């Protein structure tokens, strides 16, 4: 569990000691509004991910926090001090970019020590710090190489060491893993997370990769079209998405259009489906039900939320099989169901086979209908 949230059970999502505080932040490029009144609190030592599709404003928000691109309106406070109009050099952060942005004509050691040299520290102190940092990122013997002689993963480690060299209070990571190949990305993900835990440095990472956000962040800020759709722990964002967009963007979800029939009953086509709760929805209202493919169960016998369906397609995805299920009747439903590999082996499902699918009420998420 995330450490900050765990300490205060009363209000798990409002860190008691706000490290970074963003209020009604806006940013426009001409008529285009990249950020629309963003409010966000980030606690000290937290690891936060900004997640969203490209063009959602996550990088714009990061650059505004860094002071690299000034916001149009609103304010940013760091440790309670208003830095809204401070230049980047007065904001106390280190930054790592997707492109690494290592200085190609300087050695690894000179890159890492770049910010230290400017602080007019004595040479041996700089050397000691550089050695320490290179050991920290697992590159103790690469100090005299040039960036071009390193692999992508190594270069990104150097960039990380350089960003941490001046011991900044805030570490900003702008899609740091996107340029790396899959295997390196997985390893570096763990390394960055471990490093952050060890140093306790407040970290914001921008990513469009939901898996990355889910596995690394203590809190995820899901963004779309310049607004924050949801802020929450990975568990919250995945299991209780606040909006249909979040549900769709984080993980896979099947959507069913329906109409509220009772307090917790929704009519979808000619089926009535029970949901666990539907606060704020009233009978007659058009809604959308969302269901994760892995929540669908294939069962025997009739019952509540159990539908007779037929398998139309099976797609092998390694450890599980994604089945496309089609209902019966005049306006049949289509569902996705993820079947674990062992279940598949036991039952030997095949396309065309009739099955009964259970849509557990607790797993059905209800959203207002998208316009």
């Amino acid at each position: 569990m995330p450490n900050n949230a765990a300490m205060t059970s009363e209000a798990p999502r409002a860190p008691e000691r706000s490290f970074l505080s963003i209020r009604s932040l806006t940013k426009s490029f001409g008529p285009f509004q990249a950020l629309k009144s963003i409010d966000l609190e980030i606690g000290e030592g937290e690891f936060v991910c900004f997640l969203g599709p490209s063009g959602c404003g996550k990088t714009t928000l990061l650059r505004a926090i860094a002071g690299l691109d000034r916001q149009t309106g609103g304010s940013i406070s760091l440790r309670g001090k208003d830095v809204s109009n401070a230049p980047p050099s007065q904001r106390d952060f280190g930054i790592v970019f997707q492109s690494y942005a290592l200085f190609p004509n300087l050695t690894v050691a000179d890159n890492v020590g770049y910010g230290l040299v400017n602080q007019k520290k004595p040479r041996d102190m700089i050397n000691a710090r550089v050695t320490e940092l290179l050991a920290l990122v697992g590159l103790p013997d690469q100090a005299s190489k040039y960036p071009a002689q390193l692999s992508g993963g190594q270069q990104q480690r150097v960039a990380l060491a350089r960003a941490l060299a001046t011991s900044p209070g805030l570490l900003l990571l702008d899609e740091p893993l996107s340029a790396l190949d899959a295997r390196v990305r997985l390893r570096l993900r763990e390394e960055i997370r471990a490093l952050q835990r060890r140093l306790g440095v407040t970290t914001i990472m921008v990513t469009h990769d939901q898996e990355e956000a889910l596995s690394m962040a203590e809190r995820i800020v899901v963004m779309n079209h310049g607004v924050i759709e949801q802020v929450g722990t990975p568990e919250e964002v995945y299991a209780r998405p606040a909006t249909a967009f979040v549900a769709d963007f984080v993980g896979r979800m099947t959507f069913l259009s329906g109409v509220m029939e009772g307090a917790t009953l929704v009519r979808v086509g000619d089926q009535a489906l029970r949901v666990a709760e539907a606060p704020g929805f009233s009978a007659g209202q058009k809604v959308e039900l969302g269901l994760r493919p892995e929540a669908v169960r294939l069962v025997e016998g009739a019952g509540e939320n159990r539908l007779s369906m037929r398998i139309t397609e099976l797609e092998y995805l390694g450890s599980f099989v994604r089945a496309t299920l089609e209902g019966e009747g005049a306006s049949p439903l289509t569902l996705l169901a993820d079947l674990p590999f062992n279940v598949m082996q036991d039952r030997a499902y095949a396309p065309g086979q009739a099955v009964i699918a259970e849509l557990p009420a607790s797993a059905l998420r209800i959203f207002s209908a998208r316009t």
Partner: protein
Amino acid sequence: MSANASFTRDREARVATLLLAGLAFLLVLLIAVPLWSLLSKSVQNSNGQFVGLANFARYISTPALVASLWNSIWVSSLVALIVVPLAFLYAYALTRSRMPGRGLFMAVAMTPLFAPSLLSAISLIYIFGNQGFLKSWLFGASIYGPVGIVLAEAVYCFPHALMIMVTALRLADGRLYEVAEALGTSKSRVFFTVTLPGARYGLISAIFVVFTLVITDFGIPKVIGGQFNVLATDAYKQIVGQQNFEMGAVVGLILLLPAIFAFFVDRQVQKKQVALLSARAVPYEPKPNAKRDFALLAFCLLIGGLLIGMLGMAIWASFIRYWPYNLTFTLNNYNFANFDPQGWGAYLTSLKMAGLTAIFGTAIVFVGAYLVEKTKPSPFLRGFVHFLAMLPMAVPGLVLGLGYVFFVNAPWNPLNIFYGTLTVLVANTVAHFYTVAHITAVTQLKQIDAEFESVSASLKVPFWVTFRRVTVPISLPAVLDIAVYLFVNALTTVSAVIFLYGPTTKLASIAIVHMDEMGAVAAAAAMATCIVFTAMAVKLLHLALDRLVFARFQAWRKR
């Protein structure tokens, strides 16, 4: 305002803004104000009173001047019509064939760039002039006049047209040719449906560039034009001969028109040219074809031979005792003191001028391009500086020179103490060649990761430290390119500086004009030879230095 408060806190932004403002001021002084002086002079009388378009009316009603306008137009058009097809074919041979020695032929075609334009005119005088050994080939026509101008300009413009055509033909999508072949299209149909349309923007651009180069060139018509008047020589006569500054300004403005037109055509064309080649295109790889390659080789040998011949003729003639009667070797023609009071001084002045232009020009251009490309504050200033940097491209040297005359010569101008000094020559030459150098610098800077400045800011390192420690070392090859470009052009330019030199600052290229005027053609050829050899030596030094820079100081480029 908190924005203002932060402005005073943000030292980096302040420095960048201050530097940009300084640069903007300098460029206004070097480029905009002289142009403005030219414009305003054209609507004033000799007492400086505003007379509207009276000067233009007088121009149109002077038959001799209008005749030069017509002369300029048809000569320039003719040169474009001759040079562009030749350059197209030559470029085709370089880019679309397996002809041997393509690199060498490219280098040969570039040789005219290392000489003042009038060198080819001097060569033509030796070949077809009154004492020329091939005079009979002209069937009684005289080389002094349009024939000589057209031939000499063709040589002078060839490398410019060729560079455009090579660029255009290199941008070919190999897939189009594969598809055409797969469909069984005939070779000639492929040429007319794929090759030619692909290069059409380059062709248009080349035609305009050549037209502008010819119409604004001063050296060639001065040397070989005889009684045949063109706009550029008119401007010279009005200013230097008759001291009629107003009419000179009108001629200058007329010269500005085709250049501005060509500038905008070129910009449009470049936009389209880029769009022509998608990111998925694969480069065209010509297949061997003995017949085609042989024909193209013959053609390139002919053209390349002519270009080398034109250069070689003047060089050879400069070592001849008395053309054509006594062909023994001599170095007498290099004893410049016999022909010109300045003697070798002109050559040394040229070296000094070119050196200063290279040093100051490169520094200003590169720092300026960095500020425009890599700093954040004051988008308006950055845009303004970029605009001023692009402006000289549309201004022929002769026109800029005229503007300088009016500006620096003006009695109200405290800067008129600089008239005729090396300072004004250097300033004018930097301004004249600013655009290409600026584009080179911007192109280089665009290749550098845009986040270097962000990273520096996050590490609390000011941008000027990163500029010194990272940007300049990375960009050394491009910086060297700019310096050599400025040096070679400063050495060979005639048109802008002809109005601006003073008694102690006569340049080698101007000495050539003067010695030719006095009939000392061999000495003129000798001086031109000095310039050619110097320019080529600098270029070779550049290539060697480039190797050294890459090998020694750019070890980090190696993997």
